C-alpha cells in the first residue's frame, strides 16, 4: 500500500473547495430536517407539554404536581415533560440551550445563573417567598436500625464512619449538606476555626462524592458508606418507596430552600403551573412527597416514609439559613469557590 500511496496523484484543491461549499449547504438542509422531525415528535406526544428542567430528587413529586395541575381548569390537557439531574448541571444545561419552560432547582444561585444568561426574568424572585417553592432540612440517613449509632453531626466525623454526599461541583444537595455541616460547627460564637476544623474531618470521612443528590442516595442504598447526608424529603421519599433506611433529623440543621421559575419563553400554561406549585394544593402535593411547605401549609394527612407519618416534620432546635451566613454570594465565595473556597482547599 505504501507504494500505491507514493503513486498517488494529487486532487485539485479548487474542486474540493467547491464541493465543500455545496456539501455544507446540503448539511445545513439535512440538519434542519432532523430538527423539524424533533419538534414534530415532541409535539405529537401530548397537546400542551410543559418542559420542566428539575433537580435530581423531584421527579416523582413533580410528576404528581403535573397530574394535579392537569385536573385544574388552567391546566386542562397539559402534561409535564421533565428532565432531572444534578441542579448545577441542569442549570448549565438550560444556559447551554436545553429547552425549558419551568426550571425547578435545588438552590437560588442555580436559577440566578440562568437569569444572567437572560433566559429567566430578573424579577423571578419577586413573590412573597422570594422564588422559593419548597423547603426541606438536611438530615442524616443511616442504615436500618442505625448500627453505627449516629445521632448528631459529631457522630459522623468519628474515624471509621463513611459519609456519602453529592459533589458541590454539580449538585445543589451537596452544597446544602456542606453548609449544614459548616454552620452547625460555627455555632453561636461564629467560630470559623472550629467550623473549618469540623469540615476538614467531615471531608476526610467522605467515601463517595456523587454527581447528584439522587446518585448519592443510590450509592448509599447499594451499600456504600455508613451515613448519607441528604434532603429530608429524599430520605422520606426513599422510605416511602420501600428503600431500607432510617434517618435522623439532627438538633441543629440547615434550611433547604428550593426555587422555581419560568423562563422568558414560557407559555401561559407554564406560568399557571408554577402558580399551582405555589398554591395550597400544590404545596400539599409537595408535602406528601416529604417536602416542607414554603408557605406554612400544614399536612392534611399522613406523610408516608416519614419517621412519624402523623407528625412528619419535627422542629429541630436550631435551623440555620443561608441568609444567616451572609447570603449565597458570601458562602459561594467562602466555601465553594473553585480556586480558594474552603471545601476546595480541604478536598485538595
Amino acid at each position: 500500500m505504501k507504494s500505491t500511496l507514493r503513486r498517488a496523484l494529487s486532487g485539485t484543491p479548487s474542486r474540493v473547495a467547491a464541493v465543500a461549499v455545496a456539501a455544507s449547504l446540503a448539511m445545513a438542509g439535512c440538519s434542519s430536517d432532523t430538527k423539524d422531525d424533533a419538534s414534530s415528535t415532541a409535539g405529537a406526544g401530548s397537546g400542551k407539554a410543559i418542559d420542566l428542567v428539575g433537580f435530581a430528587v423531584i421527579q416523582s413529586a413533580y410528576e404528581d404536581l403535573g397530574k394535579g395541575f392537569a385536573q385544574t381548569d388552567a391546566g386542562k390537557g397539559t402534561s409535564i415533560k421533565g428532565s432531572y439531574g444534578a441542579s448545577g448541571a441542569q442549570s448549565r444545561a438550560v444556559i447551554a440551550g436545553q429547552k425549558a419552560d419551568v426550571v425547578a432547582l435545588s438552590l437560588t444561585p442555580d436559577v440566578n445563573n440562568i437569569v444572567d444568561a437572560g433566559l429567566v426574568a430578573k424579577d423571578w424572585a419577586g413573590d412573597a417567598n422570594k422564588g422559593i417553592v419548597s423547603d426541606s432540612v438536611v438530615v442524616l440517613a443511616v442504615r436500618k436500625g442505625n448500627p453505627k449509632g449516629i445521632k448528631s453531626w459529631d457522630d459522623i466525623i468519628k474515624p471509621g464512619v463513611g459519609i456519602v454526599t453529592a459533589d458541590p461541583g454539580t449538585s445543589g444537595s451537596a452544597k446544602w449538606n456542606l453548609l449544614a455541616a459548616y454552620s452547625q460547627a460555627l455555632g453561636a460564637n461564629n467560630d470559623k476555626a472550629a467550623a473549618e476544623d469540623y469540615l476538614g474531618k467531615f471531608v476526610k470521612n467522605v467515601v463517595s462524592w456523587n454527581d447528584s443528590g439522587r446518585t448519592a442516595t443510590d450509592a448509599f442504598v447499594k451499600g456504600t458508606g455508613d451515613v448519607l447526608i441528604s434532603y429530608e424529603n429524599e430520605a422520606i421519599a426513599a422510605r416511602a418507596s420501600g428503600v431500607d433506611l432510617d434517618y435522623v433529623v439532627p438538633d441543629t440543621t440547615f434550611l433547604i430552600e428550593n426555587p422555581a421559575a419560568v423562563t422568558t419563553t414560557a407559555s401561559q400554561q407554564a406560568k399557571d403551573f408554577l402558580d399551582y406549585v405555589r398554591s395550597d394544593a400544590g404545596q400539599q402535593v409537595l408535602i406528601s412527597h416529604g417536602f416542607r411547605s414554603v408557605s406554612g401549609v400544614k399536612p392534611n394527612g399522613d406523610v408516608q416514609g416519614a419517621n412519624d407519618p402523623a407528625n412528619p416534620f419535627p422542629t429541630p432546635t436550631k435551623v440555620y439559613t443561608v441568609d444567616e451566613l451572609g447570603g449565597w454570594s458570601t458562602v459561594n465565595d467562602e466555601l465553594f469557590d473553585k480556586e480558594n473556597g474552603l471545601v476546595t482547599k480541604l478536598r485538595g
Partner: protein
Amino acid sequence: MTLLSELDRVTPPPARRGRRPGAVTGGAGLGLGVGVLWLTLLVLLPIAAIVSTAFDDGIAGFWDAITDPEARSAITFTIGAAALVTVVNAVMGTLIAWVLVRDSFPGKRVVEVIIDIPFALPTIVAGLVLITLYGPSGPFGINLVGTRAGVVLALLFVTLPFVVRSVQPVLIDADREVEQAAASLGASGFTTFRRVILPTVLPAVVSGAGLSFARALGEFGSVILISANLIGKTQVSSSYILKMIESAEPVAAASVATLLLGLAVVVLVLLDVVQRRTARRD
C-alpha cells in the same frame, strides 16, 4: 487502524485484477470532497476542539488538570483496571478460543452466541445485568457495587469477545499436524502449547488484548451503575470527564479527554505495527 491492516492484507498490489485504482476524477472528486468535509465536521474538528480546549490555559493548565488529585486517581485507576482486564482477557480469551475451536461439546453454538452478547448489548444494560447478579440484592450475597472489583467485572464483561474473536480464526487456520507431530515426539501438553501454539496465536492475542485495553480505557455505560462513582476509589476517567463538563470545567474535562485520546491513539498505532509485522511474516 485495523482497517488499514485489512487493506494491506487483502490488497495484494501486484496481482490486482482489472484496472489499477486510479486518480480521483469527476463524481469521485465530489464524493471525496463530501467525505472529507463530513469527516472534518464530525471527527477532526471535535477532536481538535478537545485538544485545543485542553491547552486553553497553556501547558500548565493541562498539567494542573491531569494532576488534580481527583483526576489523577481516576486516571490511574482507569489505566490500572484496563491493564488488569487486558491481562485476564489475554489468558481467558485464549483459553476460551481454544476450547471453542478444538473442543466439541453439546451447546457449543449457544456459547458462540453468548460470547457475542457483550458486543451487542447496550452498555447501560450490561451494567444493569451485572448489578442484578452481583449487586446488593443478588442471589449470591456478593455485593460488588462501589468496589473496584465491580468495575473490573464490568470491564471484563464488555471486553470478553475481543481476544476470543481475534484468536479463534488463527487457531482454526493453524496447522494441527505440527501440534500432533510435537506431541508424538513426546512434547508435553504444556511444551506443545508454549512452543507451537503460543507463537502462532500470540499476534492475535496481542491485538485482541490491545483492543480490549483501548475499550476498557474509555468505558462508561457499563461501569457507572456498578462503580457508584466513588471519588478516589471507583471513579473512572470517563465519569470524571462527564462530571467536569457538567461542572462547567471544560479545561479539566478536555485535558483528561486528551490524555485518554492520546493513549487510545498510541495503543492503536502499536496494534497496527504488530499487525503489519505479522502480515509481513506471513
